[in-house]
C-alpha cells in the first residue's frame, strides 16, 4: 500500500487547493502556492524516505521500480520548483504585472494533477493505464499554455498544442489498439512476450504510430513543430514547466515503450534512433541561432537537448538508463535555473527579447551570473553538471559504435555554445540601455535561483548522485529481463 502514498498526497493536495480556493477571499489566496509547495515537498519526502523502491499494487497494475522511483522524484521536484517560480507572477509581485493571468487555485491544482498523471504513467503496467495517465499528464498542459486568456498568443499556443496533442494521442491509441489486437492482452510485459518473433506488418504499423506519438511528446524532429509557438505563447512559468516536466514525462513514456513494450527490438533500431537524434540536435541548434525571443530560443534549445537524450537509447540498457536519468536530473536543474532568471527578468521588465538582457551584469550581477552558469551547463562546459551528463551520453553512443553521431553531437555542442554565448554577451559586454537602475529579486525567487544554481554546480562535481542512480537502476534492469 505504501508505494502509492506519494501519489495520494499530491492528489489530496490538489483537491485541498480546489476546495480551499472556493471559500477564500482574493487576499487570502496567497497561501495557496505555499500549500501546493508543501504538499509536493511532503510527497517528495515520503517517496524518498518511506517508499520502497520495488512493489506492486492492484494485482500488478501499479508497480514501483527503481526507475519509476527516480522519475517520480524528478517529476515532483520539477513541479515544486515550478510552483516556487510561479508565485511572483501569479501574486502580481512584479515590476511589470502580467495581465490576464490569474485563478491561482485552479492554476496550482492543474499543475498538481499533471504531476499525478506523470507519476501514474511511469508506474503503469498495462496499455489502458498508460494511455489514461499520459492524457492526465498532458491535458493540463494544454490548459496551462492557454492560461493568459487576453493574450492572443497564449490562446494560439493552447489551440495549437491541443490540436497537435490530440493528433499524437490518436497515433498512440491507434498503435495501442493494434498491439492489443495482436497480443490479446493489455499487460505490457505479456505483450512484449507474445510479440517476440518475426515482424508482422501490423506490428510495424503499431510501432511506427506509437513511436511517432512518443516523438511528439519528446519534441523529436520532425514531430517538434508545436514546441516553438507553444513555448513562446504560454505564460513564462508554464513554459518552464513544459520544458522540463513535459520532457521528463516524454522520456518516461519512451522508457515504458522502448524498454518494456519493445525491449527486445530496440537493439535492432539503433540506426533509426541515431538518425532521429542527429536530425533533432542539428535542427534545434541551427534554428536556435537566429532566434530573438528568449522563450523561442529556449524552445529550440530544448529540442536540441531532446536529441542528446536519444543517444542513451543506443547503447546497452545498463549504461543508457542511468546516463539518461542523470542527464534528465541535470537538464531539469539547469533549465529551471535558466528559466528562473528569465521569469524574474520578465516579471521585472516585461521584456523577453535577448537584446533586452544587455547590461544585466550591471543591473543585477548575481542574476546574470546564475543565468550564465545555467546556460553554460546546458552547453556542457566542463566543471558544470551539464558536461558530465553529456559526457556519459556521448560515451554510450561511442561505445555502441556510432562515432559519426558522436562527431555530430560534438559539433552541435559547439554550435550551442555559440548561441548560449549570445545571451552572455548581451549581459556582460553590451552596455545597458538606460542608465543602470538596479533590478531587484524577491526573496522566494532569489532562494529558488540559489538552490538551483548550487545544484547546477555541484551535481557534476560530486559523483554520489550518479553512482546512486546507477546502483539502483541495475536492479530494475534485472527485473526487466525476468519479466
Amino acid at each position: 500500500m505504501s508505494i502509492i502514498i506519494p501519489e495520494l498526497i499530491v492528489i489530496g493536495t490538489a483537491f485541498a487547493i480546489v476546495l480551499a480556493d472556493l471559500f477564500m477571499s482574493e487576499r487570502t489566496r496567497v497561501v495557496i502556492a505555499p500549500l501546493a509547495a508543501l504538499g509536493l515537498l511532503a510527497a517528495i519526502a515520503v517517496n524518498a524516505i518511506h517508499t520502497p523502491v520495488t512493489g506492486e499494487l492492484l494485482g500488478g497494475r501499479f508497480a514501483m521500480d527503481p526507475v519509476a522511483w527516480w522519475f517520480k522524484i524528478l517529476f515532483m521536484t520539477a513541479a515544486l520548483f515550478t510552483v516556487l517560480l510561479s508565485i511572483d507572477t501569479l501574486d502580481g509581485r512584479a515590476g511589470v504585472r502580467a495581465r490576464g493571468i490569474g485563478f491561482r487555485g485552479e492554476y496550482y491544482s492543474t499543475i498538481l494533477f499533471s504531476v499525478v498523471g506523470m507519476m501514474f504513467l511511469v508506474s503503469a503496467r498495462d496499455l489502458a493505464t498508460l494511455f489514461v495517465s499520459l492524457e492526465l499528464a498532458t491535458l493540463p498542459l494544454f490548459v496551462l499554455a492557454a492560461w493568459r486568456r487576453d493574450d492572443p498568443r497564449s490562446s494560439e499556443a493552447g489551440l495549437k498544442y491541443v490540436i497537435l496533442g490530440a493528433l499524437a494521442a490518436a497515433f498512440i491509441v491507434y498503435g495501442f489498439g493494434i498491439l492489443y489486437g495482436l497480443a490479446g492482452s493489455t499487460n505490457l510485459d505479456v505483450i512484449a512476450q507474445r510479440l517476440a518473433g518475426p515482424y508482422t506488418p501490423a506490428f510495424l504499423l503499431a510501432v511506427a504510430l506509437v513511436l511517432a506519438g512518443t516523438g511528439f511528446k519528446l519534441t523529436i524532429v520532425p514531430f517538434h513543430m508545436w514546441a516553438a509557438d507553444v513555448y513562446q505563447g504560454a505564460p513564462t512559468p508554464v513554459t518552464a514547466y513544459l520544458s522540463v516536466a513535459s520532457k521528463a514525462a516524454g522520456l518516461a513514456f519512451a522508457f515504458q515503450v522502448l524498454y518494456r513494450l519493445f525491449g527486445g527490438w530496440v537493439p535492432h533500431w539503433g540506426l533509426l534512433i541515431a538518425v532521429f537524434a542527429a536530425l533533432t540536435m542539428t535542427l534545434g541548434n541551427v534554428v536556435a541561432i537566429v532566434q530573438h525571443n528568449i522563450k523561442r530560443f529556449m524552445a529550440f534549445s530544448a529540442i536540441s537537448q531532446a536529441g542528446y537524450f536519444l543517444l542513451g537509447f543506443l547503447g546497452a540498457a545498463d549504461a543508457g538508463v542511468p546516463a539518461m536519468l542523470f542527464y534528465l536530473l541535470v537538464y531539469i536543474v539547469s533549465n529551471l535555473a535558466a528559466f528562473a532568471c528569465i521569469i524574474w527578468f520578465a516579471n521585472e521588465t516585461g521584456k523577453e527579447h535577448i537584446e533586452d538582457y544587455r547590461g544585466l551584469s550591471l543591473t543585477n550581477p548575481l542574476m546574470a551570473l546564475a543565468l550564465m552558469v545555467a546556460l553554460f551547463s546546458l552547453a556542457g562546459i566542463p566543471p558544470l553538471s551539464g558536461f558530465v551528463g553529456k559526457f556519459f551520453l556521448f560515451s554510450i553512443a561511442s561505445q555502441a559504435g556510432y562515432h559519426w553521431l558522436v562527431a555530430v553531437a560534438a559539433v552541435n555542442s559547439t554550435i550551442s555554445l555559440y548561441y548560449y554565448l549570445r545571451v552572455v554577451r548581451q549581459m556582460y559586454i553590451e552596455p545597458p540601455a538606460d542608465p543602470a537602475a538596479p533590478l531587484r529579486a524577491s526573496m522566494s525567487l532569489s532562494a529558488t535561483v540559489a538552490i538551483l544554481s548550487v545544484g547546477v554546480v555541484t551535481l557534476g562535481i560530486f559523483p554520489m548522485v550518479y553512482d546512486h542512480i546507477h546502483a539502483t537502476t541495475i536492479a530494475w534492469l534485472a527485473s526487466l529481463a525476468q519479466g
Partner: protein
Amino acid sequence: MIADAVYTVMFYGFSAAVVILALAAVNMRQLLRAALALMGMLALSAALYIMLRAEFLAGVQILVYVGGIVVLIVFAIMLTRSSELLEDRPRTLTRWYGGVSSILFMLVACGALCTTPFPVQSDAQPAGDEVRKIGLALLEQGSAGYLLPFELISLLLLVAVIGGTVIARKTRPRNQPFTTGGDLRGEAIVQAARGQGDVTPGDRHS
C-alpha cells in the same frame, strides 16, 4: 443462409455509409451540416458494433458520442458565430498535401492490417452477460481488473472541467487586475483596495 446474406449486405452497407458520412463531416463547408454528418457516422458505427456483438460498446458510443459530444458541438456552433469563421478555403496545395498523405496513410494501414493474421479468440459465442462482466472488471482490484485507469479517468475529467471553466470564463478586457483575470468579485475587492471601486458587484456572472 438468407440471414447470413442479409447480415453481410447490411454490414457492408453500414460500413460504406460510415465512410461516406465521415468524408462528409470533413468536407462540408457548413459546420452544422458537418456536425450532423458526424452524428450520423457515429450512430452508424454503433450499429456496426451491435452487429459485431459488442453491445456495451454500442451503448457507450450512443450515450457518449452521439448524445454527448455531438450535441455539445452543435451547441457550440449555434451559440457562437463559428459558422462564419470557415469562409476562407484552404489553399489548393494544402488540400492536395493533406489528401495525398491521408490516402497514403490509409493504404499503408489497410495493407498492414490485411496482411497480418490476427489471433482469433476461440470462444466466439458470447454468453450474454458482457455488460456485467465489463462493469465488474472496471471495479475489480485484482490483476484482471481496470480499477486504476477507471479512477484516473475521473481525475482527467475533473481537470478538464477545471481547465474548461478557466479558459471559457467571462473576461473583462480592460481594467483587469493582475491576479483575478475575470473573477469579478475578486476584481471588486482588489479595486476597492486600490481606492477606485468602480466595479459594481451586480454585473458579475458567477
